């Protein structure tokens, strides 16, 4: 395969072995070919695939650090430094606070969950789709069991609608025994065959062309960014430090161990480093001299349908073509969100760009096929759409392990789908690995007074009239509705800005409160939210940003205006 590719590539491809991994160098004619060569190499049985093929017209990407520069971290020491504030880094941080260790989480963006953790469909997969025997399968099934109690502790909504894999033909329905065997091998919590009539009865708006379904009752949904924020806040409440706008630029090794972590805010010393850097985790591994794997990017686009569509859909559902059941993703579908919207997607396309979230017209056309599964849904109900990038290794499995080369480094890398579902289970394992390493240089004891519960900020719209009235009497800001589409009050926005993880960008406020997430898409509430953020943070009105420095909403006051 690789030899054939190298001929078609025309410029020659060099293979070598380095530290147990296969290294591919040379030039690939296209990104797709580069990825296919990487996949082929993954079958050769090496520890990892380091795919350094260059693609014409697609230069290697480099991290662009935040504009912020100070010395907040200079000279500091933490027992554990976590690189990356996605759901994995945040879950690891919280898990580690159970122990008496000092923990710092470094996130290069102005908020946690800024990338893949906020750019997915919020599905907590059942674990059926993962390849039996893979890390994905094990972590997914355990993570699925952990999320529900964890959400209860965090004060985050969790629902378990279950997932219907619809059969598009009598032939595909014949695959049921094979599917059941896979579910059994993966240890999935329950599965059933549903007849065509049963599907129609339990999912009244399902389109007529189904031939029954494989039902997985354990599949759940949550808000991925709210969950990530809650994990990070819970970690902070238990003593962890979270540094936003803080990008790791390099690492200094002494006697083979990471001694110092360099950032745009100074260099700090670290006992143990956790690599949870998402789409940059291979680059971060390289900073420690341990790049035994490399990532490729698989972009996925989803559409969000209006908030009143959720009542038309009871279960997560999709109708993968027979060949897709074994493919690298399960092919997307319809997901009823905890908030009552319906998410359509995601697509899956290999495409370069670790942070390329631009959407394309063809992607939305592709989503049509999912919408057609439900007779009450249409793409005309879409209020917005977005893209996410899955960080994939060529082995298409997670990397969750202690580094073989660097004794104080733990990787939680290549966490693509079902990464959200797996996060609590991965965090358990990573925390155990960190504790093993840390016990080599200090005593590791449980933290006194660790609190599992996070007291979530009030959500007045979910309260009954008397409770809501009492809340407003205590603080009138909860009675001032700022976002009319999602019924978000000024008090909730103030809570978000003043939380233990203070944020000041519009996107961060939106992720926490839903202000601006509704059908008018911020047309009405943007000025009000800006005013509250500016007032609470003491910054000028025009300096309020969409997503951190460089994304200011305005350039300054108008002529003669006093702002």
């Amino acid at each position: 395969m690789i030899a054939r590719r190298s001929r078609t590539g025309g410029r020659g491809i060099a293979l070598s072995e380095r530290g147990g991994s296969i290294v591919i160098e040379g030039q690939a004619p296209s990104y797709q070919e580069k990825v296919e060569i990487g996949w082929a190499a993954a079958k050769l049985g090496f520890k990892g695939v380091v795919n350094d093929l260059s693609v014409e017209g697609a230069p290697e990407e480099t991290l662009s650090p935040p504009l912020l520069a100070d010395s907040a971290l200079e000279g500091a020491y933490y027992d554990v430094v976590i690189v990356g504030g996605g759901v994995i880094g945040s879950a690891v941080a919280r898990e580690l606070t159970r122990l008496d260790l000092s923990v710092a989480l470094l996130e290069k963006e102005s908020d946690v969950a800024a990338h893949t953790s906020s750019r997915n469909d919020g599905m907590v997969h059942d674990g059926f789709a993962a390849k039996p025997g893979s890390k994905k399968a094990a972590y997914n099934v355990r993570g699925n069991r952990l999320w529900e109690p964890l959400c209860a502790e965090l004060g985050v909504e969790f629902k378990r609608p279950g997932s219907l894999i619809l059969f598009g033909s009598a032939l595909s329905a014949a695959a049921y025994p094979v599917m059941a065997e896979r579910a059994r091998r993966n240890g999935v919590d329950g599965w059933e065959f549903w007849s065509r009539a049963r599907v129609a009865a339990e999912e009244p708006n399902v389109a007529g062309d189904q031939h029954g379904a494989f039902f997985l009752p354990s599949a759940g949904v949550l808000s991925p960014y709210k969950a990530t924020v809650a994990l990070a806040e819970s970690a902070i409440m238990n003593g962890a430090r979270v540094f936003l706008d803080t990008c790791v630029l390099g690492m200094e090794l002494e006697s083979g161990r990471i001694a110092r972590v360099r950032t745009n805010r100074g260099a700090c010393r670290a006992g143990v480093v956790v690599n949870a850097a998402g789409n940059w985790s291979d680059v971060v591994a390289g900073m420690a001299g341990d790049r035994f794997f490399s990532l490729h990017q698989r972009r996925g686009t989803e559409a969000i349908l209006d908030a009143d569509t959720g009542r038309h859909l009871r279960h997560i559902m999709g109708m993968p073509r027979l060949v897709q059941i074994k493919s690298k993703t399960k092919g997307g579908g319809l997901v009823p969100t905890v908030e009552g919207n319906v998410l359509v997607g995601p697509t899956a396309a290999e495409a370069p760009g670790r942070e390329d979230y631009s959407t394309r017209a063809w992607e939305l056309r592709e989503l049509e096929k999912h919408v057609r599964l439900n007779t009450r849904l249409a793409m005309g109900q879409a209020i917005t759409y977005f893209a996410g990038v899955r960080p994939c290794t060529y082995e298409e499995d997670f990397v969750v392990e202690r580094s073989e080369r660097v004794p104080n480094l733990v990787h939680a890398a290549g966490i693509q789908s079902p990464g959200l579902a797996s996060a609590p289970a991965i965090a358990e394992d990573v925390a155990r690995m960190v504790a093993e390493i840390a016990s080599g240089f200090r005593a590791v004891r449980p933290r006194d007074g660790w609190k599992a519960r996070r007291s979530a900020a009030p959500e007045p719209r979910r309260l009954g009239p008397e409770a809501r009235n009492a809340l407003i009497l205590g603080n009138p800001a909860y009675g001032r509705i700022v976002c009319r589409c999602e019924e978000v009050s000024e008090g909730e926005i103030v809570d978000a800005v003043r939380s233990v993880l203070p944020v000041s960008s519009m996107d961060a406020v939106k992720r926490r409160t839903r202000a601006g997430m509704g059908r008018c898409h911020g047309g009405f509430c943007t000025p009000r939210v800006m005013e509250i953020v500016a007032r609470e943070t003491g910054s000028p009105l025009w300096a309020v940003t969409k997503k951190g420095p460089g994304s200011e909403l305005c350039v300054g006051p108008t002529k003669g205006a006093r702002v």
Partner: protein
Amino acid sequence: MSRRIDTDVVVLGAGPAGLAAACAAMEAGARVVLVEREERVGGILKQCVHDGFGLVRYRSKLSGPEYALRDADRFAALGGAVMLEAFVTKAERRDGGFSLSCVDKGGVVELSSKALVLATGCRERTDRQVFIHGDRPAGILTAGLAQYMINVQGLLPGRRALILGSGDIGLIMARRMTLEGMEVVGAHEAKPEPSGLSRNVRQCLEDFSIPLELSSTVTSVRGGRRVEGVTTARVDEAMRPIPGTERDVECDTLVLSVGLIPENELARSLGVPLDPATKGPKVDQSMHTLVDGVFACGNAVHVNDLADYVSESGETAGRAAAAYASPGARPERRLVPVEAGPGFLYAVPQLVDLGSAAAEASGGATGAGSAGSAGSTGGADERAAFYFRSRATMPGGAVVRMATADGTELYKRRYAVLRPPEMERFELSPHALSEALAGMRGDGARLVVGMERLEPK
């Protein structure tokens, strides 16, 4: 304990429609509570510092705030009660009337009323609704948001803007942004003709040498944190981008003026049937929806071109709501549909109530319409106003005819020119209505409006 307020008429929204409705209802003798979610009354007029308001209603050229102040002052003089920064969280029908849950900074308020007037206005379509792709940086905003930032907040949204769409707010903002020192590189309209009023194309684009590119759209946005540029493309008759015509335009701001959608979430929750053509409630000539006791007016019913007509429909709705809430027997509603021919984008009202037309014709037996109207400037109180827009531009004009199903003509007029951006209006006396429809009975009863296109000479 939450507060409770009992009243005759609740008016939701204190923009031009709601203010007029509240005033008219009070003048007709009703007890009124006006509910407004913002800090001040006036609605979108508060941010419209340009002039051109009031030409029809007051025969003078006013700015938006000046125009709003007229009815705000009128309402204050009537001693009207307004709840500011109040938001309705739930509306339901109860005991022949309505029960509304509101929140404001004093807590939860339970409002009950006999009649309800929806004056909730409209919202702007967004970049996502016209399927713009690419990145999503800061610097993409609707024309109304740009207007609020510049005129109310005193903020400059960018330095170099491209406008997508040629709706009136977009055109007005092209001028406004230019006056504030921004460079407006052009307005792109996917349709082959402008969407806004001709006077705005002249006064806001042509007078400032801002190019208007018709049959052209924005397909994608470039820029990670702040807009760095957009891709424009020519479109075919089906408004699909034509490959090979893409052009990259450098700008830091994309302003959208791509249409308005009536806000009807509350109407929907009350089961009020909507017209797919207007996206607002179907109403009769009293702005009465198909749910008894629920009235609607202004841009919540259909998007008007002038605020004056918004106020006019508010007056009608307020007066009718007061009559509905007044003690005594209500005339039985006998609704017949008004069918608009294929030449119309839409026509409002979609129904005529013969019951109230007959009552009006026989001398205001409903108890409303005469008592307090002396001070109002609406004029022609009892006449039924019809509003319509043509589906296409008719450069040679058209003949518009309204008739009963059996051919009895009620109205006929020749228009010199018809353009979709310009709303047209005509009126009929209730007398004519009731007379023409006197013989109509049964299921076949209906009115038909037709349009006959004339060729340019």
